[in-house]
């Protein structure tokens, strides 16, 4: 079920009504669990079984692991959980990719291997909930947390519909305790939650789908060399589209949860105002970057095993982070570029720390723009359908592709330029504060006017039901 659909409006109204009725807390939680299965099953009912498998596997493994004292047994149980979750993820998401690469490797060895046709449908959001349940098993294994005491609470943690399919990837410690005692939103929480839902849908439906997606699709769908203006516009459009789409989903998820009385953590903090790449990853898809930090980078040794090993750990984490996004080498390159940026930044920071220029506003803005520019280049690989397309676009951007074709009209170019300018200014102005703090400083009539304008824009756009980009991950 899409947030930006009438089906969700009806579904959410029903959930809110049920949640407001004077049922015992256990019944309310059961309602939420059933609603979450309905939410997920509304795409493809059989895939609910995968969520059940993850839930049951990690529930029992964690219990057993917690009681078990023998290290080898505990490791074995952790492996069982990881293999189960990654096995599901690998089969559905990476099976075809692995087969293709196996075929290519065989061809290099002179063996004509033809793999069977792979026509498995990717269950939406599989990367999100498998990472969420793995975090639970890993926390218990590392003795960071005790297992949940209630199966109902744990099942709801795995399945909680606002963040089930595209995050934020919630940590057990942040969500499971919220299910322990009755919760109901206050009127302020409820209305602020609706405000966040409106903001999130505006970002998705109006900004991402209406203002930016057409130009991004046109440019990334082109087959030949492009005029430099078109190439840059397309990449700028995608940078805004992916932010508005994904941050829009997260904001909606946070708002929906808040309407029910639950708190989800922020997933974005104005990433295009980041100064440097460590800063970028503290602001972009925070729930994934912290997951990778805590369950991959740190266990690999982090920065505790010497300089060389730190760089290796950094690159390994970012390459796997890239692969998490999709079964394609272009995503791996995207992760590799970010890993390289982080490594270079680390090196430069060590060498030139304490520079007097670092604190000046002008150089901060220049560094933020440089960061954005370098991030833009990575989006080319993220969005391009293959490497030849990515190279072609990069050459077009830098005028190395000869006389490129013009594919965008002024209407699209102006829309992208305006959205990009507004987005960068907004990110810069909000980079050291929060949305809540900014809203608190804003006069009530302006809040009402902006909110009403966003709601009207969503209605006037009518929506075409485009799925959120991150569902595919």
């Amino acid at each position, binding site marked *: *079920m*899409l947030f930006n*659909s*009438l*089906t969700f*409006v*009806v579904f959410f109204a029903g959930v809110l009504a049920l949640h407001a009725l004077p049922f015992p807390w256990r019944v309310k939680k059961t309602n939420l669990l059933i609603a979450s299965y309905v939410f997920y*099953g*509304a*795409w*493809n*009912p059989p895939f609910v079984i995968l969520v059940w498998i993850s839930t049951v596997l990690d529930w029992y493994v964690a219990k057993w692991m917690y009681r078990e004292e023998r290290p080898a047994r505990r490791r074995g149980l952790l492996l069982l959980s990881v293999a189960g979750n990654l096995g599901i993820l690998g089969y559905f998401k990476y099976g075809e990719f692995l087969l293709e690469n196996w075929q290519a490797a065989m061809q290099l060895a002179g063996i004509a291997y033809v793999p069977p046709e792979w026509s498995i449908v990717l269950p939406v959001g599989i990367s999100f909930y498998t990472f969420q349940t793995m975090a639970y098993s890993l926390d218990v294994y590392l003795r960071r*947390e*005790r297992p*949940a005491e209630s199966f109902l609470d744990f099942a709801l943690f795995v399945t909680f519909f606002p963040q089930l399919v595209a995050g934020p990837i919630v940590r*057990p*410690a*942040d969500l499971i*305790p*919220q299910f322990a005692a009755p919760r109901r939103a*206050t*009127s*302020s*929480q409820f*209305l*602020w939650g*609706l405000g966040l839902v409106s903001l999130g849908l505006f970002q998705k439906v*109006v900004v991402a*789908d*209406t*203002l930016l997606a*057409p130009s991004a699709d046109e440019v990334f769908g082109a087959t030949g060399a492009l005029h430099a203006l078109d190439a840059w516009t397309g990449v700028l459009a995608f940078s805004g589209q992916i932010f508005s789409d994904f941050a829009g989903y997260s904001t909606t998820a946070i708002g929906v949860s*808040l309407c029910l009385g639950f*708190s989800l953590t922020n997933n974005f903090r104005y990433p295009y105002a980041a100064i440097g790449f460590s800063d970028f990853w503290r602001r972009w898809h925070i729930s994934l970057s912290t997951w990778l930090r805590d369950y991959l980078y740190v266990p690999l040794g982090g920065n505790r095993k010497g300089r060389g090993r730190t760089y290796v750990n950094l690159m390994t984490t970012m390459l796997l982070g890239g692969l998490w996004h999709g079964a394609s080498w272009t995503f791996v390159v995207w992760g590799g570029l970010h890993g390289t940026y982080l490594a270079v930044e680390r090196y430069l920071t060590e060498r030139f720390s304490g520079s007097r220029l670092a604190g000046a506003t002008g150089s901060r803005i220049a560094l933020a723009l440089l960061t954005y520019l370098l991030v833009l280049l990575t989006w080319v690989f993220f969005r391009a359908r293959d490497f030849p397309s990515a190279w072609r676009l990069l050459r077009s951007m830098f005028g190395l592709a000869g006389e490129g074709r*013009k594919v*965008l*009209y*002024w*209407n699209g170019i102006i*829309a992208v330029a305006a959205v990009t300018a507004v987005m960068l200014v907004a990110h810069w102005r909000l980079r050291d504060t*929060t949305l*809540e*703090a900014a809203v*608190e400083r804003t006069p*009530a009539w302006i*809040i*009402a*006017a902006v*909110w*009403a*304008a966003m*709601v*009207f*824009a969503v*209605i*006037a*756009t*009518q929506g*075409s*039901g485009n799925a959120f980009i991150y569902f595919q991950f």
Partner: protein
Amino acid sequence: MHSSISSSERPVPARPWPAIFVAVLVAAAALTAGWELYWRGVGFVDHDYVDTPGLWATQRRRVTGDRTVLIGSSRMYFDVNLRAWAELTDGRRPIQLSLVGTSPRGILTELANDSTVSGLVVVGVTPGIFFRTRRGYLGDFPQRAARESPSEWLGQRLFMRMERLFAFIDWDTQLGTILERQPLPLREGMTLNRAVRKVSRTRADRQAWLEPRILADSAYRQLVRDIWMDRNDGGRGPPSPGPDSVSATIGELARDIARIRARGGDVAFVRFPSSGRFLAAERRDFPRERYWDRLARELDAVAIHYDDYPTLSGYETPEWSHLSREDAVLFTRALVPILMDSLEAR
């Protein structure tokens, strides 16, 4: 669990939220009402449904047994009146599965592969689309309809409820469409690629007809004609398929026809009227003897060309490609007896 949630409680800005919310509801309702009134003033109406994969799916699900099915492009879609058809046959309206700008060949194959389909399938032939492709503009509709999720199924029904109330729900009134159509100067070396404007109205059963504004507003009519010519004049479209391609198409049609006939059904082909420069372009790019006549001659099926029947000729096609709503009724009343007699005689 050890961790406390107190630190993760989301802050809520201290503002007068109830008053703000009421103001938002009033303002958003006022803006939406103004928007609705504006588009009604332009000529948009309620109960005019957007053709979506979900709407197409509502009709596709009705295709079973010996029901008559209409497939084709916009001419089959706008130029046939379902009620008039029913009055002249067994009282049941045919099921309209035509799609604008889309070839019916892919849908015919899909119907041929469906063992529950055993009725008459009438295929509208718009040469520029039919002989060029098996898909076309909305060629993904059948696949999307077949993959419709429970959420999409319900969403379509809710969307249709909205369409009963609001006139502003339409492709042409979407914010994105409006922005895209703002008349800004062209970049040097680019040509204008105008999207097709609103040319029809559609009921819930996919009974469609030509947009009345095309008849009433000569400037709009000319705009629609110009857009047709953007796509069909001066060799802007893809090249016309050669004899081998036509042979392959006919072979493919013959296989589909045989499968449907094996279940007791039948297939007939109809060429609907066109006129003006559109017809001239069709005659230039798809000469009758090399396309339609081959199909009629080589397929063992009923094939009705409007030009061959006095009662089907002489209709005015206001924007050169489709009949008016009134003429669609008259045309249907003329077409059905010819079709039934031809099927009877075969």
